[in-house]
């Protein structure tokens, strides 16, 4: 059976703006919300939308991501004849296939896509926090008889200059695209979500690489080419929670928003669950000295200190007399006794020794890198 729509997740970016957190791992595998990794949202959306064949394009530090995704079973993406395939750059007789940009990454994987003979290709990035039904977007794409549909998010006009902005006519057809415009004509920001009819996209990409007009990037090259050739290109507006977690600040903010019980993401909604690779860990243990308020805590954690407005991921230990406030603590972190963690993100496997201090501010979040050991700072 041919696959109607194939999902392709672009998960190869380095995410340099996440600093230490992406020094040794790709952005999509950064932990989020206590028991997820960023890519879980995209993978769960695919599974929940009935898209069962997915290629994940990796390039930068893919080890942790590969280990997380495995065969896709955690998201129900391990059907026979479908499922998740990790696509890494490889050497071939015609040269090395490293990816120079988003569109180039698709071009390099034409053989994979063709092997499923899909009618549509859904292109996603693996670094956004949101819940979205791609099937509805596909229905819209079909109804509009589009060859390209771009997922857009209405943003505040003042925010618009930070995004790629789609200008549309009153049938939602895209008439112009501006990357980070100083004087935006519209507030429809591209979410980096595209549905393409596969045959024409393949033709554009192949022809561009056969000649000199290389199409490396969807925003810079492909969308302008589609508009120039008058391809039916439409904007599909998404209304809901959507957050780009590309910076330390936005990653922290998204975690703090996730903590609010009436968060627009509605994580606890069982009709659109977010799945993750799960490990069987003991239940969380809150001791006699624990004080836990406005907090999210995950299995395997041991809390003897005070947790205020913070998220603790799996297997986190917080010793007696310690305070964790307005912070996000990633899996397997050990926080000793009498430690203060305030406005911080603590990376996986990090250790904050007894009496240590990790203190940031609302505008400058403190970060402890993966596996880093800090603290043991003697107080005067």
């Amino acid at each position, binding site marked *: 059976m041919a696959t109607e729509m194939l999902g392709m997740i672009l998960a190869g970016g380095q995410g340099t703006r996440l600093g230490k957190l992406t020094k040794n791992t790709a952005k999509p595998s950064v932990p989020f919300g*206590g028991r997820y990794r960023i890519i879980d949202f995209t993978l769960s959306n695919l599974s929940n939308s009935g898209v069962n064949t997915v290629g994940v394009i990796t390039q930068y530090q893919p080890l942790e991501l590969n280990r997380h995704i495995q065969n896709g079973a955690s998201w129900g993406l391990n059907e026979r004849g479908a499922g998740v395939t990790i696509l890494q750059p490889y050497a071939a007789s015609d040269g090395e296939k490293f990816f120079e940009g988003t569109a180039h990454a698709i071009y390099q994987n034409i053989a994979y896509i063709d092997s499923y003979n899909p009618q549509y290709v859904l292109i996603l990035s693996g670094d956004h926090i949101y819940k979205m039904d791609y099937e509805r977007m596909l229905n819209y794409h079909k109804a509009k008889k589009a060859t390209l549909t771009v997922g857009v998010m209405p943003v505040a006009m003042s925010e618009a200059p930070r995004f790629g902005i789609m200008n549309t006519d009153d049938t939602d057809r895209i008439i112009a695209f501006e990357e980070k415009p100083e004087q935006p004509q519209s507030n429809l920001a591209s979410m980096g979500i595209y549905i393409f009819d596969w045959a024409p996209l393949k033709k554009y990409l192949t022809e561009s690489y056969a000649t000199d007009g290389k199409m490396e990037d969807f925003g810079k090259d492909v969308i302008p080419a589609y508009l120039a050739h008058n391809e039916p290109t439409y904007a599909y507006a998404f209304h809901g929670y959507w957050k780009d977690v590309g910076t330390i600040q936005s990653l922290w903010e998204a975690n703090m928003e996730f903590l609010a019980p009436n968060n627009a993401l509605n994580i606890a909604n069982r009709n659109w669950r977010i799945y993750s690779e*799960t490990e069987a860990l*003991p*239940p969380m243990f*809150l001791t006699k000295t624990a004080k836990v308020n*406005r*907090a999210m805590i995950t299995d395997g954690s041991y809390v003897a200190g005070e947790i205020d407005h913070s998220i603790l991921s799996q297997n986190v230990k917080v010793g007696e007399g310690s305070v964790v406030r307005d912070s996000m603590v990633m899996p397997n972190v050990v926080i000793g006794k009498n430690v203060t963690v305030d406005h911080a993100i603590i990376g996986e496997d990090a250790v904050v020794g007894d009496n240590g201090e990790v203190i940031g501010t609302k505008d400058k979040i403190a970060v402890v890198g993966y596996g880093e050991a800090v603290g043991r700072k003697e107080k005067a």
Partner: protein
Amino acid sequence: MRRGEIAAIIDLNEDVHDLLPLTAHRPIGTLPFAGRYRLLDFPLSAITNADIHSVGLFMPESERSVQDHLRNGSAWNLDLIQGGVFLFPYVATRDYNDPKLRERYYENYTQFLRRSSSKYTVVMGAKNVANVDLNAILAYHKVSDAGITAVYKKMPRAWVHPTDWTLSLSEQGAASSVIRAEDRPDESGETVPVFMEIYLLATIDLIDLLDTAAQTDEFRRLPQLLREAVLAQNANAFEYTGYLARIDSIPRYFRANMDMLTESNYQSLLFSNIPILTKSKNEVPSFFSKESVVTDSLLGTGAYVEGQVQDSIVFRNVVVHRGATVADSIVMQGSKISAGATVRHAILDKGVVIGPNLTIEGQPDHPLVIGKNRTIFRVSELEGEGNA
């Protein structure tokens, strides 16, 4: 260790009477434990850790909950290309006066054992909660002369119930028989060697035992055959020194759960070298509100706590509303404690709802048990409720 050296038989036909109503629709093996486990997780985790690839699960009368928990065995790495979990249906109510049926009983076991092509077989149940290292037991078995190894733990005399199985140990440490505690000759000593109902023996010897039994007119089940074998040939006794609980009554079930609130027990049973594996659900992290007060408790994921929780075991997806208190209690999956309600010394089975401002209270040694999916809006609805 070479894969397939040991096969395992888990017999889930264990007496559930003293655990009613918790066992009305589930065997002891699927009783929830410590906020996220089922008792069956303990033998299955021991099996996985010992690289055992053939597991015969002899099903209890209420099979559904076992099937639901087990699925394809992948949570314990038992979804193998060769071997895996083999389920044998419940047979206990059959009429074993019929020689044909009697033969079938033994044949179920022997067929499984022959196909496992294992050298040794371990036989265990689910009601003895422990974290056992089957490789260590095998190593001990191999260096002994006895044909059978039986596993025990020395327990304080006060812990032991009259009907508990124990071992008679010789001075050399061999087990000469398996007897009820009440049948033990008067003895001094502060501890009693409590039998954990775990046997290890050569598969071929077990097949012999079963084949021989099949040829007699008297019907004897496997546990009885094994006890008789210990009496006939003496067993090698392996002493287990980790945490042990025996779940055969409501007070013992309650106590064992509460034991996990002591850090040393929690560490020794759940955080040892042998991880306890269980089926994972994609639950959200547990949420604690601004007003919540939670101390000395174990919680599963997906809980939503606005009220107070103290000295309690709370399973996944439990809601404790504002002003509600849960103390010294076990609250199973999906239960809900409404605003202002108090639950003390109680066991709430799955999906129980306690109405607003109600007080539900049992005795410290006799917890009040509220059966699965019950909704309680008035205390009068609990009249005549079996205090265990």
